[in-house]
């Protein structure tokens, strides 16, 4: 249950029973999830992964007219350099004026760690408002602000009153959670508790929770046939649009991991139905996603019409590729949301999943139910494939790929694709969240897979020229060699 009265979202370990260490199989994990006996493993050797702050403040910085004030030492605010100029490029692509958007930092120094720096934080927030005139301000926490116990909530409350715009703390201290997706929850908690207002009237808008919205044109056209308009959140939205999320007729998400907090939060608080379905990757996902929306809108017939047209147009072409892809063995290494949805889409193409490495695993979403994409695999997967929860641990991934030797590897995270290729395994990165969207996406995907397994030149050439940074000893161990019993954490 999402509690918006709290000053911060609970981290996933405590709220959803999420874990970052497991090694077994699909059905074994399913069994443990069902009977409640799932305890994550810790590691006595680990590599750098990602943090919730980068996720939280990364997504928030794509709001068209919001400011991020990162209460952190300057290095932590390097996210400002990461999002510059992607947010400008995106705004230019869809012709939005994002001149009020900015990312600033309080530049905490050594004396701040001793004496605290909330006075400086107040000044920076005020000056940010004066300079850029943003319509909302998000105060990002950091490890330093967390350890020294800065009271961001009080500062935000005072300044909301003083400046007359939402000023919200974002509790994304990096040490609070091992699951960076908790950062999405922290960001959405800030939006739900400080920006979204109670509905005045119902609109015909459907909230589509996604990252950057590359399929905006197709989805807008498709939704027009259902007499609704998509609002892609939260990139490229204004504070004002976000304040009216409660008026929307439904919420959909392209990623279960990303969408759970906002989707369920809007449903629990304002009764906006959150379509709890597979995500729209491949055929089953796309159909269930759109049918779920059709049901909420009472537009089942129109949805069936869209689906049959898409099917007619693309299915014969997908079928032609299927025969060429059948029998390929694949490993998927992604977060759990995309991972299980991608695995399903691959199975639709006749590709065998030999292993899924999920960076974390959510035992349930915020409605208390097991994630739909995982449940679907439990009942539909033709084989009980290997499944690990591995926190983006590169040593585990390389070890696993070297052992399994799949025909192809699928990735989604920065810096993970090339490691398969160094082992001579062709790899395809699904950076775009709409890369396997529906029939057309699956067709593109199938053709891309065929392309990467056909032309192996870069993979083969790279493999010949590089040496792995791992010792032979490590490659002879089992991938979960360093797993140790975890302390159960409550968030």
């Amino acid at each position, binding site marked *: 249950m999402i509690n918006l009265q709290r000053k911060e979202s609970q981290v996933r370990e405590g709220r959803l029973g999420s874990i970052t260490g497991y090694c077994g199989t699909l059905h074994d994990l399913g069994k443990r999830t069902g009977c409640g006996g799932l305890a994550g493993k810790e590691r006595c050797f*680990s590599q750098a992964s*990602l943090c919730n702050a980068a996720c939280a403040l990364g997504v928030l910085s794509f709001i068209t007219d919001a400011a991020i004030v990162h209460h952190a030492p300057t290095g932590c605010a390097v996210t400002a350099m990461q999002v*510059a100029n992607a947010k400008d490029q995106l705004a230019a692509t869809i012709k939005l004026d994002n001149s009020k958007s900015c990312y600033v930092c309080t530049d905490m120094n050594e004396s701040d760690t001793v004496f605290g720096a909330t006075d400086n934080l107040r000044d920076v927030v005020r000056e940010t408002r004066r300079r850029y005139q943003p319509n909302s301000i998000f105060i990002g926490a950091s490890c*330093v602000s967390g350890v020294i116990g800065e009271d961001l909530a009080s500062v935000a409350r005072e300044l909301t009153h003083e400046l007359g715009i939402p000023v919200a703390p974002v509790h994304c201290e990096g040490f609070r959670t091992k699951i960076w997706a908790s950062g999405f929850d922290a960001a959405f908690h800030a939006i739900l508790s400080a920006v979204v207002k109670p509905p005045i009237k119902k609109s015909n808008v459907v909230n589509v929770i996604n990252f950057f919205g590359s399929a905006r044109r197709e989805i807008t056209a498709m939704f027009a046939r259902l007499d609704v308009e998509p609002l892609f959140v939260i990139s490229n939205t204004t504070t004002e649009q976000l304040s009216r999320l409660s008026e929307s007729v439904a919420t959909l998400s392209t990623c279960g991991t990303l969408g759970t907090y906002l989707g369920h939060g809007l449903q629990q608080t304002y009764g906006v139905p959150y379509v709890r379905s597979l995500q729209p990757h491949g055929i089953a996902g796309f159909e269930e996603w759109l049918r779920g929306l059709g049901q909420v809108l009472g537009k089942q017939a129109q949805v069936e019409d869209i689906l049959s047209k898409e099917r007619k147009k693309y299915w014969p072409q997908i079928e032609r590729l299927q025969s060429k892809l059948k029998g390929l063995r694949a490993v998927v290494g992604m977060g759990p949301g995309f991972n299980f949805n991608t695995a399903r889409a691959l199975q639709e193409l006749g590709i065998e999943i030999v292993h899924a490495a999920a960076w974390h695993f959510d035992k349930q979403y915020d409605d208390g139910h097991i994630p739909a994409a995982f449940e679907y695999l439990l009942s539909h997967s033709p084989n009980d494939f290997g499944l690990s929860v591995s926190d983006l641990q590169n040593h585990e991934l390389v070890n696993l790929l070297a052992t399994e030797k799949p025909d192809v590897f699928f990735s989604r995270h920065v*810096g993970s694709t090339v490691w398969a290729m160094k082992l001579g395994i062709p790899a395809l990165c699904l950076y775009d969240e709409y890369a396997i969207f529906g029939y057309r996406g699956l067709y593109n995907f199938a053709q891309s897979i065929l392309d990467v397994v056909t032309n192996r030149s870069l993979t083969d050439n790279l493999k010949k020229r590089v040496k792995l*940074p791992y010792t032979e000893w490590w490659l002879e161990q089992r991938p979960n060699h360093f797993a140790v019993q975890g302390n159960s954490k409550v968030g």
Partner: protein
Amino acid sequence: MQTVQGIHRGVPVLHAGPGCAAKLAIGIAGSNGDSGYISPHVYPCSNVSETETVFGGESKLEETLSNALKVIDGDIFVVLTGCTAELVGDDIANVVRNLKDAAKPVVFVATPGFKGNNLEGHEWVVNAIIEQYLVPKPRGSVQKGLVNIWGPVPSYDPFWIGNIRELENLTIDLGLEPNMIFGEQRGIANVDRVPNAELNLLLSPWLGLSTVKLLEERFGTPFLHIPAYPIGAQETSKFLREVGQHLGVDSRKLNPLIERHETEYYYHIERTSDVFLENRTMSRRFSTVTNAADALAISRFLVNDFGLVPATQYITDATPIAHQQSVARYFRQFEYGIEAEVQFSTDGYKIHEDIRSADYFGPPLIIGSIFEKKLAEELSGNFLAVSVPFKERLVLSSSYVGYRGGLRLLEDIYTYVLRKFN
């Protein structure tokens, strides 16, 4: 972190939160790639969590480090601490001391973000490797003609690899043997040779001064401090003369070398002069908004070689106050008595306001980072990003150093100029 990765087969071991590595790498390297023999997700990291912030993280670091030595095939392991470990007060020295019999050298450096920025961190890491790894080692005798070169900062300088190569090439041209510790296939063998050099050559206005002084103190190696890496014919010829004369290179060798390079350089300048001189969208005035090293090197080139006049130069690298005066002085020493005003500031908003209110007597040329792109567009000026955040350009082995580097910089500036017409 990126300084350690810049040493081939060097391995940073982080005692920090889970996100520090990836965040810094993506933010700094940006579109220029941060992978290689290792990459940020290969760095061993204690991934400090709530438990360690409460109970301390020394044991977590100890197991991370001792297992890292078994798992990662590296030549030198450098433990770096993040903010949390420092706030909690973990005794890193003690953890590393317990591993002093490790098969590979282990060095440690306190690098919390609240104590300094990435440039200072770079210097701390290099100095720690000298103090903890090189000083205790037996050293061979000084090798005549061997020159350590210091200056380019890995990853933070988008052109670091290319610049290093070009500086090496210029040194080789002089008949000397360059030694740089960063870049492919250099690695620990080059680190080991550092104490044997005849000279430490520093090409940077302030960063690295403590390193060459430390090397002088520890190994007695003299240093030559040239405050900017050379770009274009004038500066590069000056550089070759200065280094050559310093190390006694015969002028009968030096002069024909410079002559050959300058002939080639001015062939290109001459044949492209119409483009440079006859266009509607380029004025004479420019500003740089970047770190001190790039600002000085580029200003010297544009003023002393290419005939432009400097407006205010904005230095954004948080140059330590102790160095600001000497850095500002370099900007008052251009040819023809030309001087440039310098502002040290990390406040991008104020810098942009200042540029907006300045008169460039035509379209300004603004050389900085991607943060200046929109500003240049707003002012109908010309723009080139040379420093981080870099973005929208890919640099593999290109360099702005030397004769070729000057031509390359002109190519890049005029590629932008040629996109416009008024």
